[in-house]
């Protein structure tokens, strides 16, 4: 039964661009997948390990800038910048992670914000990286390796491949010793440590894995849009978006980020269309309102709410059958 759900989901994702043969939906679909990648990457450190990073934009930005920088300097395919972005991101993850992951949660959140802002300001003033204007990729493709396509469909399948890889890795982690360690850490660091879990080391591993895929999301973003500037790469709202999407669907759940993205990205696109460019303020007010409501009423996200409802219904059904059998038993007794 469980496999049926997976097959249906995978088929739906694979066939989506074919069934909605319309540039608007193709674009929207690819944006949902991209958001799901970065939110799923955040989920590894923020959801599974319970260390709330509010600065994952740093990895997104590194991943987005490197391909464009490689193109600017040596006119090579942006693809070559992907591993460079990951390398930079891993270095940053180690530098932030080693001191702060030793400490309890809030330090880590603060440090991630501070480092993201630090790097945003440096990049905004760095001529090599285009300062406040940012960097642009090849306008016309010289070959497929420039990854410039007019349709959104090739991007859709690229994003889907990365997302499925990430979800498969996450699934594997969930069922492995690594996954149990992370859950133990989230449940209670001191208890985990007393049971012999190498807490700091595993938090760092989770952070590095998160950094790797967030960087990859940034690289994918930049090949799709063809340019990057400090705000859309390192801005604090980029980080917030990842946290929000994962938390809406369900932090620490495999499909939470995908669900969150499937709800929030269309909502964001629609509100932007509705209010126009001047309405960005309203979009964020709406965002903030949703965040506050999740935090206040449903911190486990929509998936947890769904689980609870299903459990309640199952309990009710169990009670119903129980009383039915009771009645039947009494009936047979009387007879």
């Amino acid at each position, binding site marked *: 039964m469980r496999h049926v759900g997976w097959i249906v989901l995978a088929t739906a994702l694979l066939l989506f661009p074919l069934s909605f043969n319309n540039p608007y939906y193709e674009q929207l679909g690819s944006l949902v997948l991209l958001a799901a990648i970065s939110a799923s990457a955040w989920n590894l450190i923020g959801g599974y390990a319970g260390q709330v990073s509010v600065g994952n934009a740093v990895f997104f930005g590194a991943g987005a800038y490197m391909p464009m920088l490689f193109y600017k300097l040596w006119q090579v395919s942006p693809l070559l910048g992907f591993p460079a972005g990951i390398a930079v991101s891993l270095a940053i993850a180690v530098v932030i992670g080693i001191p*702060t992951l030793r400490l309890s949660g809030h330090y880590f959140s603060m*440090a991630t914000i501070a*480092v993201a*802002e*630090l790097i945003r300001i440096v990049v905004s*003033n760095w001529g090599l990286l285009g300062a406040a204007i940012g960097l642009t990729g090849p306008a016309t493709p010289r070959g497929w390796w420039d990854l410039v396509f007019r349709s959104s469909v090739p991007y859709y399948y690229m994003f889907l491949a990365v997302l499925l890889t990430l979800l498969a890795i996450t699934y594997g982690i969930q069922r492995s010793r690594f996954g149990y360690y992370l859950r133990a850490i989230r449940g209670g660091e001191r208890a985990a440590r007393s049971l012999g879990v190498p807490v700091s080391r595993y938090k760092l591993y989770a952070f590095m894995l998160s950094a790797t895929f967030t960087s990859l999301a940034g690289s994918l973003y930049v090949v799709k849009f063809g340019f990057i500037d400090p705000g859309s790469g390192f801005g604090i709202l980029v980080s917030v978006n990842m946290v929000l999407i994962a938390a809406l669907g369900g932090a620490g759940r495999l499909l939470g980020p995908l669900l969150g993205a499937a709800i929030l990205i269309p909502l964001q696109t629609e509100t932007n269309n509705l209010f126009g460019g001047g309405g960005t303020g309203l979009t964020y007010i709406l965002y*903030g309102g949703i965040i506050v409501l999740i935090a206040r009423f449903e*911190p486990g996200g929509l998936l947890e709410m769904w689980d609870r409802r299903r459990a309640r219904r199952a309990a009710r059904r169990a009670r119903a059958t129980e009383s039915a059998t009771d009645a039947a038993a009494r009936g047979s007794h009387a007879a």
Partner: protein
Amino acid sequence: MIFLQVIVAGLLIGAVYALFSSGLTLVWGMMNVINFAHGEFVMLGMYVAFWAFTLAHFGVASFSAIAAVVLFMLGVLVYLGLIRNVMRGPMLAQILSTFGLLLVLRYAAFWAFGANFVGLPDGILGPSLNVGGILLSAPKLVAGVVALAVTVGMHLLLTRTMLGSRILAVAEDRNAAMLMGIRPDHMQAIAWGLSGASAGIAGALIATFFPISATVGESLGLIAFVVVTFGGFGSVPGAMIAGLVIGLIESVSAFYVGPEYQDVFVYALFVLVLWVRPRGLMGKA
């Protein structure tokens, strides 16, 4: 002489940082909740001052008081409506709740007041003063001195009065405080109110010399985090020293390296503190 001027200017702005950061450190140390929207509180204090001046021609003293009262109420409201319900939940919920608040406040202000910068008139506190060859702008001098006085007042309130003892008792041990007949809920609401009031006064003081915009809370909020971490969570004296140091670093690096890099030095210091002494100057281990 110019060096001395840079130092004094840094200390004056640092005193204002110390003021609003002491509010942040109070709730952080007491409830272990980070208020990500603290910079937005300061921003609202600036707008309250601006509108009180523009609509009713209030003077600096009275609009600072109004900002303090308005932000006190906002702080209590945020505690009662939001924080009380999430403070003992998962950490993600705590962080999300004040982050959501940040977005709502910042962009509601953006939407209501527009994207343009506004400001109070330049000469609102009189001309610049020349003190022994050091040129001081009157608003910054007033802001620095008043901020220092209010921060010291807050420290005294916490350490020398019955109310302060009650607040600190709740911070130390909620259950023990309850057994002593203290209502933690009331004390925490008051702490949030005080935190808001500190941001409100600081905002009103900053408004006398700094352009006002809806997004100004971003950098101010980050400065508050750096100050609190540097000073040690929950320590008002720590926040005071750290605020002055951060003001100095900003002022010196803005003058000798360039204003666009002043924040870089502040954040770099922050990362350094986390590496070397994560509990801050005066924090408990």
